């Protein structure tokens, strides 16, 4: 009997090994076992790498956690529900109007991996553009609601909605509409049908955007109206908000095995610029970046703006968002935001913001980084050039001239990314949703690059797969894209129009 049981035991162990070993080999870094997951349901994992003095040693400004006893609203044992988490103003976090800043967290019990998304919402750099922040929430939302019925009728009659392709008036921000209407990241949704990716099973941290600065502002700016009769202070506080959120993540969530930092539009710009901070402080085994439609275009400030059309925008925002303004550091002396970024990212120079891409690629050669966008993005292009090129005021040529500059900038960026071994890109032709602006919002309709047989979902799956060859794809033949639309895309155009875009 003993001999039989010993043999059974031996073969049992072999069989278990054969079954478990390949299974373990397939397990994702950062995921918990089923047993640990079950434990987590009742004993939530604690922060195992909290923010320490060592973490703040290379941060020039004061960063503080929520004070003891502060009720941030976070319930560690609440899984798969969205929780609004407050950051006490003493952390340095605040919105443009000085109001408290909050983030959103949706925790998974099954993994330490985290998907962090920086919100979209335009940008502003003058009294007029900053004053009109919150247009949908304040005034245009009811208008949009009231027009939906007419939209349906027109769509049914003609197959599309007229008069929505032109973006008129001055550029402004659309920040508060983001949390609804499908404008939040489609990746941060555990039950979508059209995007299904492993990162959707991770813990989510959603960083709202309320500072008009692509999360890159470093101080308050005083704006006066054109006639000089009105003055306002706008807290371009994006950097401090991001840092406060980072400190909260470290102090409340476990160290991630994998991290995807993403963002759309303004949040995309923020994700590229802040990647190094999240990467260095959270220290995941694998890091991924997905910049959706927030390009850090090459723009050497001393060069020709015919060659690099974003130069004028970059000069403006560097000034009003305080990129090069020395501030006293906690270590002594002074430092500018850009000097800090240069210190963190060798190869980055404040005289060319676009160098952030290659600097990230070099500093994190094992990370998988990506930029996604569209050839015909008329939203980010309007923000980039409309206020800075007088010739774009003529509505008859505005669209063509704006997109011509955009094409030059996209050419520059894809050329810069092409030789970077770990920087992927995916640029579609045209998509009616938000006038080709952002791919991971609204829905996934018309986001394929048909000529290469690529889908956005496949691209993101490839990006987040270790060892998969990089994809660098830009759609060239996309006439058919213009024939693809759905009512939701048309509604998104109406929303842009009502927002004053």
């Amino acid at each position, binding site marked *: 009997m003993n001999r039989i*049981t010993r043999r059974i035991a031996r073969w*049992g*162990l072999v069989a*278990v090994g054969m*079954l478990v070993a390949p299974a373990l080999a397939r*397990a*994702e870094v950062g*995921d918990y*076992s*089923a047993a640990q*997951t079950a434990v987590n*349901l009742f004993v939530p994992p604690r922060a195992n790498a909290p923010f320490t003095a060592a973490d703040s040693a290379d941060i020039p400004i004061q960063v*503080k956690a929520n004070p003891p006893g502060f009720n941030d609203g976070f*319930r560690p*044992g*609440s*899984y*798969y529900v969205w929780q609004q988490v407050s950051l006490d*103003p003493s952390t*340095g976090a605040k919105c443009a*109007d*000085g*109001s*408290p800043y909050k983030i*959103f967290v949706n925790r998974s019990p099954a993994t330490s991996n985290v998907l962090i998304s920086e919100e979209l919402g335009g940008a502003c750099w003058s009294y007029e553009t900053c004053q009109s922040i919150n247009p949908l929430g*304040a005034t245009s939302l009811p208008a949009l*609601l009231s027009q*939906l*019925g007419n939209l*349906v009728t027109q769509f049914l009659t003609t197959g599309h909605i007229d008069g929505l392709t032109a973006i008129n008036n001055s550029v402004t921000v659309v920040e508060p509409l983001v*949390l*609804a*209407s*499908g404008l*939040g990241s*489609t990746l*941060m*949704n*555990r*039950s979508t*049908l059209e995007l*299904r990716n*492993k990162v959707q*099973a991770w813990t989510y941290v*959603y960083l709202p955007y309320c500072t008009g600065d692509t999360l890159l502002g470093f*101080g*308050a700016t*005083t704006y*006066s109206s054109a006639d*000089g009769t009105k*003055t306002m*202070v706008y807290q371009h506080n994006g950097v401090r908000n991001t840092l406060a959120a980072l400190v909260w993540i470290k102090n409340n969530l476990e160290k991630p095995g994998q991290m995807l930092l993403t963002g759309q539009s303004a949040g995309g710009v923020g994700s590229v610029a802040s990647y190094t901070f999240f990467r260095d402080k959270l220290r995941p085994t694998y890091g991924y970046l997905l910049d959706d439609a927030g390009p850090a275009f090459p723009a050497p400030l001393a060069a020709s703006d015919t060659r690099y059309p974003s130069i004028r925008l970059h000069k403006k925002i560097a000034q009003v968002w305080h990129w090069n303004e020395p501030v006293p550091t906690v270590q002594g002396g002074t430092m500018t935001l850009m000097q800090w970024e240069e210190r963190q990212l060798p190869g980055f120079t404040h005289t060319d913001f676009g160098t952030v891409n290659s600097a990230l690629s070099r500093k994190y050669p094992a990370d998988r980084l990506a930029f996604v966008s569209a050839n015909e993005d008329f939203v980010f292009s309007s923000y980039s050039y409309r206020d800075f090129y007088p010739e774009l005021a003529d509505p008859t040529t505005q669209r063509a001239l704006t997109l011509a500059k955009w094409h030059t900038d996209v050419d520059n960026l894809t050329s810069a990314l092409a030789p970077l071994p770990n920087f992927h890109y995916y640029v579609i032709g045209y998509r009616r949703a938000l006038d080709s602006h952002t791919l991971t919002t609204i*829905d996934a309709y018309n986001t394929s690059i048909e000529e290469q047989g690529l889908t956005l*979902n496949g691209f993101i*799956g490839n990006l987040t*797969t270790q060892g*998969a060859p990089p994809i660098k794809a830009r759609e060239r033949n996309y006439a058919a894209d213009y024939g693809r639309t759905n*009512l*939701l895309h048309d*509604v998104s155009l109406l929303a842009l129009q009502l927002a004053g875009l």
Partner: protein
Amino acid sequence: MPLRVWLPLAALVLLAAGEAGALFANHLLPSEPGRRSAPSLLPRQADAGLGGEAVAALPGAELTPLQVRSIDPEREPSRWVEAVEALRARLDRFASDSTSEHARRREEGEELLRLVDAFATRKFYLPGQQSQVKLEIARQIYGDEPELMAELTREYETDALNEAQRFEEDREAELARDPRFQAFKAQEAALIDSIVRSTPPGPERDAAVASETAALHHRIFDDPLP
């Protein structure tokens, strides 16, 4: 029989019974590159799409919308997580199933629409986010009925925009009740007015307005000075 015998035997039996598969859920579509596994949340939970096959959910794992609405995610974490996994598995099956007859598929889609609404009551979605999911489902079952799709788009988007508006109103109401913020805004306006009246326009005045406002915020909220 000694423990060293029982343990591997028990493990073997468990694995053979399907636990190995359940340990490693998959969150990509079968056709996507780089399909990797993530642990299933519950050992006995249906494991959507693992290895390309859709595994039937166990009876009882799939809840009705009414049952979902009855769950308190905080007090019943196992039940809630099980319900979420069941929803994901069901959506996976729905997305990959092109063989069912039309009426049956529509019936399943309509039940999913009700389920999504039920999950939305439990903060499973950001405000309005469920409309996005419902439109995806609707496109699958009503794609050949443009009038109905248009009407549903109107309905779902109206819901989403209303939620956006409620969210914004809630935020404004919260700020209106925040004595520190109200104090800040009142004093900020007075401060700016005072500086603007007493100082000629120019960069110096702009800098003074910004720095004095920052100092005011610091006094009220104790945030670090720039």
